[in-house]
């Protein structure tokens, strides 16, 4: 499963980050690294982006970018 498919209100763990380059690095720099816990908090009014809680703060990420992140329950 990828991060963009997780239902709002669920907590998941990151299994793997796909992709490369700036987007991947940026996602990792913001604390979404292998093994970290992510809570999917809400979806924006227009359906994109989504809001996550990670490492104790709120992060907003586009669904297209979240699709690079493989997660498990």
């Amino acid at each position, binding site marked *: 499963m990828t991060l963009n498919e997780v239902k709002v209100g669920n907590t998941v763990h990151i299994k793997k*980050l796909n992709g*490369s*380059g*700036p*987007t*991947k*690095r*940026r*996602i*990792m*720099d*913001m*604390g979404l*690294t*292998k*093994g*970290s816990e992510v809570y999917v908090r*809400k*979806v*924006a*009014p*227009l*359906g*994109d*982006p989504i*809001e996550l809680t990670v*490492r*104790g*703060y*709120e*992060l*907003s*990420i*586009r669904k297209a*970018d979240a699709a690079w992140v493989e997660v498990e329950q």
Partner: protein
Amino acid sequence: MIIALAGNPNSGKTTLFNNLTGGSQYVGNWPGVTVEKKDGKLKGHPDVTIQDLPGIYSLSPYSLEEVVARQYLVNEKPDAIINIIDGTNIERNLYLTTQLLELEIPMILAINMIDLVRKNGDQINVKKLENDLGCKVIEMSALKGENALEVAEAAIQMVQEHTGIPQNPHVFTGSVEHALAHIEESIEPIVGSKGLRWFAVKVFERDERAIREMGLSKEILDHVESHIRDCEKELDDDAESIITSQRYDYIAKVMLECVKKKRARGELSVSDKIDKIVTNRILGLPIFFAIMWFVYYVSVSTLGTWMTDWTNDVLFGEIIPPAVSTFCESVGMAGWLESLIVDGIIGGVGTVLGFVPQILLIFLFLAILEDCGYMARIAFVLGRIFRRFGLSGKSFIPILISTGCGVPGIMGTRTIENEKDRRMTIMLTTFIPCSAKTEIIAMITTEFFPGNVWVAWSMWVLSFLVIIFSGIALKKTKLFAGETAPFVMELPAYHFPSGKNVALRVWDRGKHFIVKAGTIIFSIVVIVWFLESFSWSLQLLDPETQLDQSILASIGGALAWIFAPLGFGSWQGTVAIITAEMAKETATSTVVMLAGKAGITSLFTPIAALSFMAMNLFDPPCIAAMSACMREMGDRKWGWIAIGYQFMLGYCLSLVIYQMGSWLFYGAAFGFGQIVAIVIIVAALYFIFRPVPQKQINTQTAEA
């Protein structure tokens, strides 16, 4: 002595900077980019400069702010670093810290917002943290002023005593440490021992930019590559991910030892509760529009406009000019000098100062929205729409403000982080009719199309379409290609805006508008005054009746051919276009003045009037907005690109309107002009609908 201030966005860096420097700040841009550069003298220490670095999350090579910051730290080598971190969000903030420590520059870790930490009932073990990180730690509250100056004093002491160089903490484990040790050994003869760990990590990450700057030979790189490969194989991940993960793993360990959080996981803070409503799926958009309506209502429709009108019409219309005139006459000043002072200088300065109250008011709202944390939510709520045409969700605000005045609109783009988004917004935001352009619309429609409600409306729709389709087309060009900065954005906790921060921000931005834009506008206004007040034989003319003998009129006549394809190739039309570049509303006053008793319908046919209006609406904005654009682009080349694009777009659009309009609705024969118009339409459609060029997709992956 230079002390650099580094930290994440929203860590309170600006507040600390203001605290340390007081009023003595210099604000500009880093060379060639639109990233803001600020420095100032430390209060009470005229020999100590505080250099503010852009707010960053990491020292990766991918974002402009990060590159600017790390170039500065590595190449300019400040004497010390104050790394400010948000005490309520230590985990992510320490990530940048682990990178800064590697530079081996004397450093102090300042844990900010300690008052909030205490209020939350959290505990931070400072001694333990100092031991783990190998660097001095001080708790502080920039907002409350607690310990702020002490942090700077401690940094100065470190520099004077040559202490405080961080002892590299044990961030990396096992095989990574092993590989890094090998790299360090290979590159030490070339890069030296200071900051060796930093360089080694960059080599490990295969950071091309850093490697290029180190000037490592191919042999060395090939040699260390095998160590990196072994490590990647063992940990089954790429080098960059390994480093990032290990940094965060290390921080997680430090957190366990040093930080105790009181609030149970999943429990909602006040900020969380506010956010639940404000960015709610159903309420999010209505709340956004209500807030925007309020900002617009106060700063554009009511208070702001009243203040601007008063400054323009009363202060610089009824009070100052007559008073100065009376004074000039009483001292028997020459007529031309009086005209220069009253019409040229006061008129010119007045145009600039007239904007100031409105601009300050808009900056006030922007600063409040930024400071309380709502600005980031706007990007969250609107992100989806604006992404479609290459803008940021935050582009909405500059465009909205530009309906009042393009100058604060352009300056409002400072809140957009991504440089490409920012440049695109600067370029497009002035296409929206501002209050001065609205006057042009009002005059043309009432004079030429009385009773037709669609003309004015269609100009508004046209301006939206121009922005949207320009965005789509420009995004596909080489200038704006690629998605270099991904949309991964922190949503900071809400807090009550600090009056001091807001005031300083408003003053900062306002001051620069007055000084910089003021000097440019001032000189140009004087030049235009000269051109329209004098004939070639340097005779002073009566502005009411003799304008046709002025230098400006003959320049207009000489340039009229440019506008002939647009239907108004007369010297009057040309002069109106030129003077409108001083201030858009002068387009109306100029044509009225030039047409004299015959009325302006004698100057244009209706379709030419429509084309004249379109040219004024879509060609480069007034001189004030153009100088703001030049300044905010941070680079003359980009300023000229924007102005060139705007001129081309206005010209082509007017040409199409005139040529196609006179052929379709006014019975003109189909000829060369119509062919040109059709070519323009086809070209525009091509640029809008063509697929993204393959070459750019390739360069994107290459960059990646």
